[in-house]
């Protein structure tokens, strides 16, 4: 697990009160991520991880699991 994956997993577990598996689980389909938690996640990425988020790239394809979110953040660094 990468550093970003670990930080995102910890944040989401605290925020959503769900156990997050690092197995590519689709967090949107599973109902873990909703509009509100997504905004909190974006705020976390920008303020705590210091990475500017490009809202145009927040799509279900690249923001649906801990792994895809971490990969996308890497590209924004």
């Amino acid at each position, binding site marked *: 697990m990468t550093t970003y994956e670990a930080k995102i997993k910890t944040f989401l577990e605290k925020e959503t009160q769900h156990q997050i598996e690092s197995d590519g689980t689709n967090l949107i389909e599973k109902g873990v991520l909703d509009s509100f938690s997504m905004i909190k996640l974006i705020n976390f990425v920008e303020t705590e991880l210091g990475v500017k988020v490009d809202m*145009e790239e927040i799509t279900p394809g690249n923001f649906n699991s801990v792994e895809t979110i971490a990969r996308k953040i890497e590209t924004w660094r």
Partner: protein
Amino acid sequence: MEIRPIKKSEWPKLLAFNEDEYRPGHIMTNKTYYDWQFDNFTNQNKENYSSLGLFGKSGELLGTFGMFQAPCHFFGKTIMGNCLANLIVRKDLRSLGYGYLLLEEASSSHELNIDHTINQAAWPMFMKAGWQGENLKRHLYIIKPKNNLYELPVSSERKVIKDGWHFDLVNDFGEEINVFWRRIKHRYPITVERSADYLNWRYAHNPLVKYSMFLAKSGEEIKALVVLRMEDLEGENGILGIKAGRIIDFVSDEEAEDFALDTTVEYCRENDVDFLDYFSSGNFHARALKKVGFVDGDSAPYADLPILFHPISKKRTHLNFAVKISNLELPTPNLNDWYTTKGGGDQDRP
């Protein structure tokens, strides 16, 4: 990406978006309706609708939040209220935060926000965003105890004194309704101002829905306003031969409540109505409703009576409302201070 008011000149883009995200033929694809709802008497902007759009980098629509403004009575003051209506985000972008962005933008720009009939999927987002809300109460009056749809106890007729009162059907509203409203609005701590401007826009000059508007008077003085809509219930194969009378709006002097409600029932009885309903928040008019014979429509055996009639559907069983005060200097009211009815939002549609 930007959130901004939708320009009236962007109607073709909005129409295509609404056809994709709702369906062709949905009320949101009807320009007459859209122009009426989102370019109302308070909108001073000639170029823009009052609704918001979320636009991508190339100017494509990603989501919309329909909203309109109406002056509200708020504990003796008049504040411009923001009535939020339809929130929708492109199907492939849902649950990604865009709906929340639209909600925040819509509600942060006004002191007083109210929304009606928020669906189950969106309700948690509103509550997390600091809104508070609850279901409207449904008050029912059963005139015909049995028809093709239900078998329910008939509501009992009560003796209401009518000497000296009259009940006039009106076509529109003038200064006399403003005088009436200024006199009685203290009864409703927070509600839409029932000014002539509002009532003419909302009911009298509604381009798509026919309302019957009554004034209860004692002598020449207005004592109550009742807005009634008659609906023929539809099944999958057309009209069922069952008629509902719906009290869409009601404001009244205390002394006129019994007469206005009872005469509305009588009018419906004379017009072959099977049952009446009236949705409202709080505990307003509770004494008179009980006295005239209205029952709690949210309890057995009445709760099974559908609220959607075109066609009859149990997909929705309640109407709700939610509110948010964005100006922290305003007092935080109790939900029971808010008076709203089925006519208060955008849900009483054609």
